[in-house]
């Protein structure tokens, strides 16, 4: 199921992976996602917990440090590639939109 799920990333998955381009713990991610998106996207604590577990199981992130109960993670090459693929997909969508409405419609 996770493989199928990650074939297209949800907004929340996308931003969690994006946060992990630099080492972060879970609580950092909870704060970073809303600030990165101007409050447009928030990730619930339960959702983040499950996503981190599943990303780790898929090798998209790795654990870098453990301080007590606080674990830090970093994006792996596989995760970076997956994020890149999602970016290309979003860009392709944006291109399609531009072609349909022109530059004027895109602004």
């Amino acid at each position, binding site marked *: 199921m996770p493989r199928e799920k990650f074939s297209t990333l949800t907004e929340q998955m996308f931003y969690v992976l994006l946060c992990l381009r630099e080492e972060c713990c879970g609580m950092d991610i909870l704060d970073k996602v809303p600030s990165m998106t101007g409050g447009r996207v928030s990730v619930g604590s*339960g959702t983040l917990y499950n996503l981190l577990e599943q990303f780790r199981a898929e090798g998209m992130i790795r654990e870098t440090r453990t301080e007590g109960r606080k674990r830090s993670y970093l994006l792996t090459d596989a995760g970076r590639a997956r994020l890149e693929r999602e970016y290309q997909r979003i860009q392709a969508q944006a291109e399609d939109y531009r072609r349909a409405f022109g530059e004027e419609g895109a602004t």
Partner: protein
Amino acid sequence: MREIKRQMTLYSFYDHTGLERHFERMAAQGWLLCKGGQYTWHYRRIEPKQLTFCVCYYPRATIFDPLPSVSQEEFYDFCAHTGWTLAASSAQLQVFYNEREDPTPIETDPALEVEAIHRSAKKSFLLPNGLLLAVGLLNLGQFLWRLRDDPIQTLSNAGTLLAAVAGVILLALCSVELCAYFLWHRRARKAAERGEFLPTRSHRWFQRIMLVILAAATVWFFISMAGDGLGGVMLVSMAGGVLVVAAVIGVREGLKRCYFSAEDNRVITIIACVVLSLAVSAGIPWLVVRGLDSRPQPKAEDLPLTLADLREGDFGGYTRKWQGAQSPLLGRYNAHEWPLGPAGQFPEKVYLDYEVTLVKLPALYGLCRETLLHERDDWGSEGPEDVWYGYAYVPTDPAPWGAEEAYQWLPEDGLDNGADNNQYLLFYPDRVVTISLQWDGPPTRSQMAAVGEKLGRGPL
């Protein structure tokens, strides 16, 4: 003013929406959830306030965990970071509350939420309900088999009827729980594909109705067993069942308090459950036998009809037996009076046996009539030269018995192997009497009238 309140939980395991709304209502009334249990929730008194509750599921937790695992604590830290405080937990079910206005929900991805609920439900909901469903089906199957085999015995046993009612209620509860869950799960997965959350729907009204029916059936059982020694035995049996459940929970919770690992706790609790169940299962039949044995030998006045009512003679030293079983549907009573003692003590060998089936629910009269009329269809005996003597109920004049119908148990085809045939089946408006008058010669008209008066119309 009490500070702690306990409440029985009637919400389904997966019904997070119903639970959240319930806990929010309780907080608004001044009761904050503080402890979760398998069967009850505990609340402590607070100033009434509007709190937002969130029920979520941690699939890796078990009911045997002495403490939350490190990763579970990490999950709690994530929740605390967004303002969610853990109110209580019970196995996989985790209940949080938040004092902030419009807080970020704990679950913001519907697909992940459905997945977590389903993984938890497999452990704590689907397996137990599936097992209970199987028990309910077995119970119902056993009852139907007994009903087919001996309907009068089955319907006149209040304990059997109560077990059947409990089995049907169990079956209905588990079926509704499982069907409702699978329906919700299928819809929730489809909704999650669209990025939507699907709230759960409570069916507490159904659970309440079932519990009221079970309570009414139990009360009905004890009322119908009033004055019968077996009622007490049944009460002890039910108490035994409750005791086993309480003891098993006690063992599990005790081991948790002593920080036994979840695996060790699970093994020890299962062993305790098996041992206690076997002990109670063995103890109850022993109690039943003791209860029956301790009953005093019935006196002549305990029997509605005795040999002294029918014949001249001294029957003081005769052995008597009088037993009955009754339910609000049927009653079945047996009596025997016979000479049991050293040779020569009773010069006149006469015996009396009878069985009265009291039909309390008139709709069952036809069933009783057919059953009693045909229950001996395959009876007979082997005579000299391997000749098989078949017997049958042959209609006879009911008037001397004061009955509506009367039959005599006689050899088929007019053959006679010399056995006494003073056996009769007599039908009265609300009862059926099977009587065996074992002495030489047919009963006189006055003896028949006495049987009709004492057994056909008299109190039992």
